Structure formats: C-alpha cells, structure tokens
C-alpha cells in the first residue's frame, strides 16, 4: 500500500523519467517516436511471412492460432515488455548512482520507469496489432475494454519483481547476467511460441504456477478470441502479483539505506 502511495506521490517524477526514457531512445533520429511503431510493424510482417507464408504453421486449431503470426505477436508483446522492464531495472540503480549518492532521492521509483516504458512500447505494439486485425477483418470484441485491468496486473507483477532485481543487483552484480539466462528459460517455458494445448499433461502444472502464462493467455483471450479470461487464472495472477508487489517493495526498501554505501 505504501508502495502505491509512494509511486502516486512521486508521479510527476516517474512521468518525467518515463518521458525522458522514451525520448532518449529515438533521440537524434529523423522520425523520432515513429520508430516505436515501425519496429513492431516490421516484426509482425516478418512473422507473417515466415510462419504463415513459408512454414505454414498450423497448430492448436481453435485456440486462435489460425493466424500464427498474430498469435505469436500477441504473446510476445507483453513478454517483451515484462522482460525489458526486468532486465533494465537490474541496472537502473547503478545508472543513477549520482542521484542516490548526492541527494535524498526516492530510489523506489527508479525500477518503475523501465517497467512503464516497456508497457508504453507494448501499447504501441497493441495498436499495430489492432490495426492489423481490423485490416484483415478480424472481429473486434467489446471485452477488449478490460485490457487496462490486465495491463495493471502486468504492471503490478513486473514492478514487484523489478524492485527485487534492482535492489539485489546493487549488491550482487552477477544477477544482471543471471537474469538473462532466467528470462531465456522462462520465455520457452511460457506458451508464447507454441499453444498451451501442446504441453504434455504431466507438465501442465508448470503453466499454472507461471504468472506469465496467465497474463499472455489473458491478452490472447481478450484480443484474438474476444473471450473473457478464465476468472480462476486471473484471481491467481492478481494474488501472485499483489504478493510479489508487496514483498518486492519491502525487500527494496530494506536494502535501500545501504545503496549509497555500495555504489
């Protein structure tokens, strides 16, 4: 609760960090922010070319995989935002050592801005996806109005983990490298490149303890299938997210006083 209040209190600060972060990415380029649209667009076109035109992938019929490129794209967007947020939060305290060592700075907002920046990029990607869906005449369902709720869950989960990662990396720098490995393993254990129906029954338990599976499925349900997500998995995702958020905030604020000593 304190975490949320703190973030709200410093919302102006968070906003300027996110803004600066997004601007910095395309700084000096001629079309600027337009690149954030071009990247997902090219990705989508390439997926379509490779998976639908060349490989003609047809898996898990009835699960929205008819257009495999769209299926993959819809799963990769939230995953990329999640992975990018976590990966960048690992270095965020070190990058801003100047602020921590020389000012009484609310360090807890630092891991949050890469998370938000990632989600903003995800939103642009969803915009491209929606345009593609409209272009091919795919039905757009009103359940999509629930997207903000899922985005919020994603934010809560990612922020909680980002706090833990950001704080721990200050003391154990190896975590940043370790994280790359963990995220690679994690993405392949999450049905993003394949539909969940292909997972052997005995291993399905892995899916249910994986909050990213619940999250990716929720997006696919809302956007591709026009269905409400399964309430059970949503409740689980919400509880995992809440626990991770609270624990993450506690862990981070416990470590925070020692940052200035170590940096």
């Amino acid at each position, binding site marked *: 609760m304190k975490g949320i209040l703190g973030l709200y209190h*410093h919302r*102006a*600060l968070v906003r*300027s960090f996110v803004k*600066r972060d997004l601007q*910095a990415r395309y700084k000096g380029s001629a079309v600027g922010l337009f690149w954030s649209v071009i990247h997902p667009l090219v990705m989508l076109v390439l997926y379509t070319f490779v998976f639908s035109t060349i490989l003609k992938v047809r898996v898990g019929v009835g699960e929205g995989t008819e257009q495999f490129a769209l299926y993959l794209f819809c799963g990769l967007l939230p995953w990329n935002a999640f992975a990018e947020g976590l990966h960048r939060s690992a270095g965020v305290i070190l990058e*801003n050592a*100047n*602020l*921590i*060592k*020389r*000012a*009484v*700075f*609310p360090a807890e907002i630092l891991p949050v801005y890469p998370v938000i920046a990632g989600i903003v990029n995800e939103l642009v990607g969803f915009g491209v996806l929606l345009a593609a869906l409209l272009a091919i005449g795919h039905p757009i369902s009103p359940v999509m109005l629930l997207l903000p709720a899922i985005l919020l869950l994603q934010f809560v989960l990612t922020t909680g983990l980002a706090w833990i990662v950001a704080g721990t990396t200050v*003391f*154990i*720098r*190896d975590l940043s490298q370790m994280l790359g490995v963990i995220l690679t393993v994690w993405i392949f254990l999450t049905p993003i490149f394949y539909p969940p129906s292909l997972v052997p029954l005995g291993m399905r338990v892995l899916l249910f303890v994986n909050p990213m599976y619940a999250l990716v499925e929720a997006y696919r349900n809302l956007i591709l299938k026009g269905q409400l997500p399964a309430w059970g998995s949503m409740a689980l995702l919400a509880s995992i997210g809440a626990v991770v958020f609270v624990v993450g905030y506690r862990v981070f604020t416990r470590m925070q*006083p*020692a940052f*200035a*000593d170590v940096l």
Partner: protein
Amino acid sequence: MVAIEAQQLSKAYRIYANPKDRLKEFLHRGRRTYHQEFWALRDVNVRIGVGSTLGLIGDNGAGKSTMLQLVAGVLRPTSGRVTTRGRVSTILELGTGFNPEFSGRENAMMSGTILGIPPNEMERLLPEVAAFAEIGDFFDRPVKLYSSGMYVRLAFAVATSVDPDVLIVDEALSVGDQYFQKRCIDRIEAFRKAGKTILFCSHSLYQIRLISDEVLWLNDGRIAEAGDPSRVIGAYENHLREREIAKAPVRVSDQGPRIFPWVSHVRLSRNGEEIERDQFMTGEDFAVTVQYEVPQPPTVVHVGIVIDRNDGVQVFGAATHVAGVTPPTCSGSVRLRFPGLALMSGMYTVSVALLDEHGLHLYDNRVREFKFQVMQTAHSMGLCHLDHRWEEVKGAADLRTYQPIPSEAGRG
C-alpha cells in the same frame, strides 16, 4: 533552538577484497564475515543552533564529506544519530542529484519534487533559478552538456532558491570563477542574515574564516577541535605545516669523535632577559643566543641562523661571515638580535649552523631544532608585519604624485 544535532555519529564502510566476498558473506548470512571495516566517522557530537553557520575543515579523507552526507540524509549512520529541523537543501561535491540526460529546467523541477515542493510552486521559482545560475539557453539543454562551472551554478541556484531552513554545501564554492564565488558568498551571507542554518566545508580556510560562526576540525573521522573559528583554524594550520615538515627530509649532523666545533646551547629570549622562552609577541625584541664549544682552539668559527615558519617557508637567514663579524675562536657565544620582531602569529623554528672560516664547510648543523611561537594582537594577516600606513587620495593630482613618507612616521 537546535537545527542540527549529531550524537555519537559514526559511519563505517565495509570493504570487500572482491565482489565474490560480498556474495559469500550474504550466503553465510552473517555467520562469517569477509569484509574489513573502515570507520570514516567516529563518535561525532555536534549541536548547531538555528541561524548559525558551522564550517567543516580537515585533511582529505578526514570524514568531512561523510559527515555532510549523513546530515543530508544521503547516508545512514552505522551508529549514533543525526537530526535536522526543517527543509534541508544540499549541494554535495561536484554535482547534486542531477540526471545528466535531463535539462537544467527538468532537473530543477526534479530537485524541487524531491524536496517536497509542489510543482506549481517550483514552476514559480524557476525564473529565479535560471537568473541566478546565469546559464542562458543551456537551462533547456541536457545537463551533461554543461561545463563544470555551469553545473555548480545550477546546483547552487536550485539549492538556494527553494528557501531551505538548513543549507549544506560541500566544496561547491571552489568551482566557478571569482565572480560566481562572490555571488555565492553574498547569497550565503544573505542566508545567514535571514537566520538560516548553514553547514559547509571548504578547503579555502579563508572562506571558512569569513563565513563561519563556529568551526569543526575533523581528523581521521574524529573531532580534533571545535569552536571559535580563529582558534580552530589556527590549530589546523599548524597541523598542516607540521605535516609538510614531516614529509621533508631533515639533515642530521654528522656523528663521530668531536674534533670540530659544535653547538652546545641555543637560547631564545626577549629584551635581554635571562629566562628562555618559546612564546613572543609581534613587535617585541627577540634574541637568539648561540653557545658553542671549540675542542681545538683557536679555530675560526662562523655562526649561521635561519628562521623558518613551520610550513617550511624560510623567513630570514643571517650569518656572521656575511655580516663581517668574527665570533670568538675558542668556546663562546654570539647573539643575534631582532629589535621589534616583525613576524606575525604562527609557529616558527630556528636552525643554527657552525661554519668554517670560508663559510663553506658545516661543522655543526642543527636544523629546525628550536621552536617558538609568535602571537599578535593586531588583526592583520600574513607572514610578517610590514611598515605601512593608509591615506586618502585627494584629487587626480594626488594620484600621480605623492609625497614620500617622512622617515620618522614610517618607523614604529
């Protein structure tokens, strides 16, 4: 009322030989330790009243910055505690908490937000910040493009525009040109007059003397002396000079069977008094009496005397062969007198040498072995008291030609 209070304030840093040790210690969960402790600050007790200015002095690594960071709340004390009253604004070293990618304006806004100033109020303060920093168009460019002078100007402008109750300044004034330093000092003066509390450290003892109500000298993380500025600064200056001397190699006189003349006694005295003393006032008659032994008389002996300040600055030297004086050729004494000692307050040393008839070979050399202190009553500064007088310039003609000082008036 107390604005800043530190009680048994101590700070230890953990030093790990390599990053692996930190991980190992973490995994052992405190059952084994892999670090060495370094105490940057130890048991510091300070009370700074509201409206008073405390200057912090000390060698590099004495704990000044650590102390300021603890008071600012950037570092947490290892033990003891520090409390502050009101809004604390800080300019720590080169660069406050600025984000290099943000523009000056954004950084100013950010600093304001961190200090808990509502955005609209900070918005209102921005013109004043920009005006004081005098960085022109750079105010809207990323801070990473700033010169170090611009950076400090902005930092100072932001820190002082937010109406803090306590201002902490670490060495910031040593950067920037004279003009800016002057404006900083002016602003700090205005703060003092407005009853703000200031804690600041500088290597410029001149600035410290100028601004501080009280001075704290830190040495190896502990308080060496605290209190009245001129007393503490004087003590620190002595410490600095002695440290300089300790570094310089001292020539030791040759040992062996005593066939050559040697100095048997050196007496520092005043106005022909019998008693030896090591404290004198500026303007007193000062005398150095050198007594020496000549084992194989008659031997021509010349006496050289050098006075140094304890930072190694040579003040004066005189020798009998230069002056055309012939001291006794058997065991005896000579005296060098200084009517109206012109030295200003400080610690000084006397070196005495015995030379051969040509003044080339050293029979005995007692380098800086005899110490004395000079104190002054007048508020002048420097190494020695020069004859002087002030006069008003009357008109343009007086600027070009002026009368020589009558010889009687020039001498005290």
